[in-house]
Structures are given as structure tokens and as C-alpha cells.
């Protein structure tokens, strides 16, 4: 991409909280980041890394401690609030008023930097509001009271409000935080479309690493001391950067599965025969019990199954014999009981 597409660029940016006693508490420093038109960027990192501080600084809500933020090549600190509002719009985690507010009038607030002091909406304002509602798929919600909306619907309306502001940069702080998984995927699709089809630069912070890995064009991974790695999600996964930021003594990054798994001290091994949907979930059930699945070598359990048009029967072979089960739940319950018999809990555990 050419440099002409860069809409936001920081150089030597230092963020944090100023203190009157002279020693500012610095969250991150020496940040050189850039956002391009048509790009969906996800900012991820462990809790407390400073994602929200960075989001607020880039959105112009908190002043940076030092360094430069350039919007369309111009120093943002020299812009009037109104000028900045025409370039950057935000969706925050702040609670929204829900009483006596229709979704339409909430979205209409986004026209603020464009209307005159009376706030009267002109034809072009109404067109933009309706466009914003349509783009996020909320046109049916226009006449509804905001208080009656579900979390997912309200978040769509808040995104529409930001879009009505007609800015080229959209910055969102944890937009998927209170939303269930299907709605989360839908919101990410909407934001991706906004970047790719409408050509807005979208930056969002998220806790949801797996979804960010799937949707983002670029990841900003912030570690716990405020250093940021930038790259395509796949590159960062392959190079092990994601693992090094998020992994801990309890969790391992599994680069083959593209996800995390709990680390357990284990010497239990199991084998699952087959490579289909049933075997996938069988493996997950065994992994949950602390078994490591392997196809060669000694195993204490060997699971096969027989799929008769959806009626699955699992067969578990073990040292002393074998057993059949009609559900995974029955299998798991039996294995649990067996493990308990092998290793009765010590008194000190009680």
C-alpha cells in the first residue's frame, strides 16, 4: 500500500497518566504505529497492558505524554476538537443512556460535528444517518427505544452513531466485550466490511484473540510492559510472537491448532482412531480429562467409534478389557470414576 493511504501515524508516542509530582506513570513509550485506509486492525494484549489508554490517546480523549499523532499528515494536537471529530469517531465502553432515546436520535447525535449550532438535521444529514443504520444492519431498530435493545443491537447502533460522524478513522474500545459469540462474529464481519468495502480505517481493541486472528488485517499485540508488535496475524502466529505475549505457566500456545490449551502435568495418553467430526469432539473430551492424544506409542486408552447414520457408539479399549458408550458424557463419567479409583484423593487434598 502507498503512503497516501495512511490516515493515522504516531511517532515516538508516549502514553500514560501525568502526575503533578513530576514522575508520570508511563504505560507505553516510543510507539510508532500507523493506520491505513481500508484496514481492520485489532489491538490485543493481556489485561492491564494499556490497550484502553492507547485507544483513548489515539482517539484524542486523553492527551499523550509526549510524541506526535498525525491525522492525514497533520499534527492532531493543533486541531480543534471539531476538526478532529470529523476525522476520528469512537465507540467506547462507557454506558449509554437508554431512556427516552430512539436508536435514530442516538445515531443522529453523530452528526454533531457537521450541523450548525441549532443542531437541525438537513437532508444530507438524514441520508447519512439512514446509510449508517443500513450499513450496520440496524435499519429495523431506528424507531426502537435504546433501552429496549439487546447488548448486540445497542452496540450496532453505537457503531452507526460513530459512522454518522463521517470520519475516516473508526476507533473502538472492546466493541465485542458484552456480546455473545454469534453476535461477536457478526460485529466483526460488519467492521471488516466497513474497512474493506467503505474504505474506513478501523482500529479496535479486543480480548478475543481467536476471533481477532481470524478477522484482522493487521494485529497490534501489546505485551504487559507496553511494547507493541505489528504484523499480519498469520505471520505473528508463525513467528511465535503471539505465544510469547500470552503464554504463561498455566497456558500454552498451540500453533498447530491456532489456539491456547491448558498446560497440565500428565502422563496419560490416549489414541483416537478416525479423522472426522466425531473424532474431533472425542479428542476434545479426552483432552479435557487431561489425556494427551497420540497416534503412536503406548496409550492407556484407545477409542474407536462406529457411526451408524448419526447413532454413534464409542468403544474404549483399556488394559483390562473394553466398554461401549452411547454418549461422550457416559464415556467421560466412566473415565472419571476409573481415574478416581486409580488415584484416590489424598487426605491433604480435602
Amino acid at each position: 500500500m502507498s503512503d497516501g493511504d495512511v490516515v493515522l501515524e504516531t511517532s515516538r508516542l508516549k502514553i500514560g497518566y501525568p502526575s503533578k509530582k513530576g514522575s508520570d506513570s508511563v504505560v507505553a513509550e516510543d510507539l510508532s504505529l500507523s493506520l491505513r485506509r481500508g484496514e481492520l486492525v485489532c489491538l490485543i494484549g493481556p489485561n492491564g497492558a494499556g490497550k484502553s489508554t492507547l485507544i483513548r490517546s489515539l482517539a484524542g480523549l486523553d492527551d499523550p505524554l509526549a510524541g506526535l499523532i498525525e491525522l492525514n499528515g497533520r499534527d492532531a494536537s493543533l486541531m480543534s476538537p471539531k476538526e478532529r471529530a470529523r476525522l476520528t469517531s469512537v465507540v467506547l465502553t462507557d454506558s449509554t443512556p437508554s431512556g427516552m432515546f430512539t436508536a435514530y436520535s442516538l445515531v443522529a447525535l453523530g452528526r454533531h460535528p457537521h450541523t450548525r449550532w441549532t443542531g437541525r438535521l438537513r437532508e444530507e444529514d438524514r441520508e447519512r444517518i439512514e446509510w449508517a443504520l443500513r450499513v450496520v444492519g440496524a435499519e429495523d431498530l431506528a424507531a426502537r427505544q435504546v433501552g429496549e435493545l439487546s447488548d448486540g443491537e445497542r452496540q450496532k447502533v453505537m457503531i452507526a452513531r460513530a459512522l454518522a460522524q463521517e470520519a475516516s478513522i473508526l476507533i473502538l474500545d472492546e466493541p465485542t466485550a458484552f456480546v455473545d459469540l454469534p453476535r461477536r462474529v457478526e460485529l466483526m464481519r460488519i467492521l471488516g466490511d466497513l474497512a474493506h468495502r467503505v474504505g474506513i480505517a478501523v482500529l479496535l481493541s479486543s480480548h478475543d484473540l481467536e476471533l481477532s486472528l481470524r478477522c484482522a488485517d493487521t494485529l497490534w499485540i501489546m505485551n504487559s510492559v507496553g511494547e507493541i508488535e505489528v504484523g499480519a496475524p498469520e505471520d505473528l502466529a508463525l513467528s511465535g510472537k503471539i505465544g510469547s505475549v500470552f503464554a504463561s505457566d498455566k497456558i500454552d500456545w498451540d500453533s498447530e491448532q491456532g489456539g491456547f490449551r491448558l498446560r497440565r502435568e500428565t502422563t496419560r495418553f490416549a489414541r483416537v482412531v478416525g479423522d472426522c467430526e466425531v473424532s474431533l469432539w472425542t479428542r476434545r473430551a479426552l483432552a479435557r480429562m487431561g489425556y494427551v492424544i497420540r497416534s503412536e506409542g503406548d496409550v492407556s486408552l484407545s477409542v474407536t467409534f462406529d457411526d451408524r447414520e448419526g447413532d454413534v457408539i464409542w468403544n474404549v479399549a483399556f488394559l483390562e478389557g473394553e466398554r461401549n458408550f452411547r454418549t461422550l458424557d457416559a464415556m467421560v463419567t466412566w473415565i472419571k470414576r476409573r481415574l478416581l479409583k486409580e488415584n484416590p484423593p489424598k487426605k491433604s487434598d480435602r
Partner: protein
Amino acid sequence: MFVEGRYVLSFAVLAFVTLIVLVASVCLGSALIPFREVVGSLFGAGEIDPVISGIVLDFRLPRALTALLAGAALAASGLMMQTVFRNPLADPFVLGVNSGASLGVAVVLLLLAPSGVALTQNLQFSGHLLIVLAATGGAAAVLAVLLVLAQRVDVMSLLILGLMISYGIGSLVSILMFYSMAERLQSFFSWSFGNFGNMTWSQFRVFAPVVLLGLAALFPLFKILDAFLLGERYAKSMGVKVKSARILILGSASLLAGVVTGFCGPIGFLGIAAPHFCRFLFKTAEHRILVPASMLVGGLVALMADLIAKAPGLESTLPLNAVTALIGAPVIMAALLRQRNLRKVFG
């Protein structure tokens, strides 16, 4: 957007009811004055008893107009406080403006009284003006402190600071009252009950322009107030200069409340009840509707409260503050029960 017509109708009905109550308020009092004679006194038409025309022109008319303006000012002020603090129970006095005023009055009535201020319940003109100045001065002093604080702290801290200032000043007033004689307390109490009836035309000529100016100053703020509904951070992201806007809004709200308190005493509940009634009536949070509606409803409720306080046909009168509370508290309760969760109005 679909309901502009309904707004116009509601405004027309409200304005008409207000006009009727205004006329009734001039006609009714300790003595009934027929409508025909009221019109005669106002426009100098027909043969009107000079005593009656004097009552209408010098007492009832300024009193009714004062109620109208004071109610409008308190309601608009309450609405602005609720929006800026995003708190449905914020009222014009939440920042301690009325405690400042009451300290001013307490100092005049309880401390300085021996040096010449008349102690009778019906204070002479100079004495009454002194009280107005003391109350307005006290309110202005608290306001000045708050506006300085407003530049340094966030809005929730400011709300708590205001409450603490209120408590602090309240206890100073209590101490003054504790060491005061009963007859001086009596005049302090009669101020603290609130009264629209002490207004003379010469005072009204000061009161009315200040209030009208304060109300007119709100009209350019509608858009900014709307943005404040989403909270200060969103307001900032939409291009509002938050700190100066906050100072402007709180300043004009406190000025309105302070002036009314100075002239009429601390009048509670109007500032909370009128905006809630309007939200409930107009089903909107937009200030271009709510501010004018609150002014109208505030004026209307103040007129009705004053009418009840005058207790037409009875010998005695009721304390105005008790009447506004009796009208205001049920309105707030109804709004609360209707919406079940009033807190969520502001998120």
C-alpha cells in the same frame, strides 16, 4: 422526526393551561377578584375601585409573574444539572448554591440583625433588599468556588464536592441558628419556606431581566447538552470543548438558581420534577424540546403551587416549599415507577 406535530400540540396545550392558571392566580387570593375587574385594572378600562386595581397591579401581578419566571428558571436549571451530571436526581441546588444563599441570609438575619435590620416578619423594603443581596451573594460565592473546582476535577468528583460544600455550609447555618434568639430564627425560617409574594415592581425590574437573560442564554446550548447525554468522553469525541462547555452550562444553571433563591428563597423539587414530567410527556431526551417544555411546565407548576399556598378562601397561607414538595415528590415517584429504572435514563 415523525412526531413534530405532536410536540406542537403538547406545547399549545401547556401554554394554554399556563395562561389559565396565570389568570386564576391573579383572580384568586385572600379575596376573589372577578376576571372582569382584573382585565379592567390591567388595561385601565372601566370604573375600577383603586384599591382593587392596586391589589391586582402591585401585589397579584408581580407575584404571578415572579412565580412563572422562577419556576421556568428552576426547571431549566434542574434539567441542565441532570444532563451534565447524568443523574436523574440532580437539582439546581445539588452543587450547594442554595446553601450558599442560606448562609448569606443567615449571616444577615442572625448575625447582623442587631445592627439595624428590621426583625419583623414583614421586613421593610431596605431589609428585604439586603436579604436578596445576601442570598445572591452567598450563592455566587459558592458558584465561584465550584467553577474553579470544575476546571480541575471530573464531573462526578464535582458532584460529590458540591454535596460536601452543601453539608459544610449547612452545618455553619445550624451553628448560627443554635446561638440565635427565637424571633430572629422566625424570620430566617420564613425566608427558608420560600415565597413569591415579596416581589415589588422595583425588584422585579432587576429579577426579570436577569432570569430572562439566563434563560435565553440556554438556547445556543441545546446541541451541546444533547452531546453531554452520552457522557463527557463521547461529547469530546464529537468535537465539544468539554471543560468550557461544562463551566458555561453549570455557570448559567447556578446563576438562574441563585437569583431565584435570592429573591424567592430556596424552593425545592421544582427543578427535579418539571424535567421528569416533560421527559414523560414528550418521550424524548432532545434538549431543543425538553428545555422549552421544562420552562413552561416549571412556570406552570410554580404558579399552581403558589395558588395552593395562598389557600384562596382561607384565612391563613401554607409554606410554599411544602406545597412544591407535595406536588413534586409524587411526580418523581410516578416517573420512577413508570420507567422502573430511572437511573438508566442517563446510562
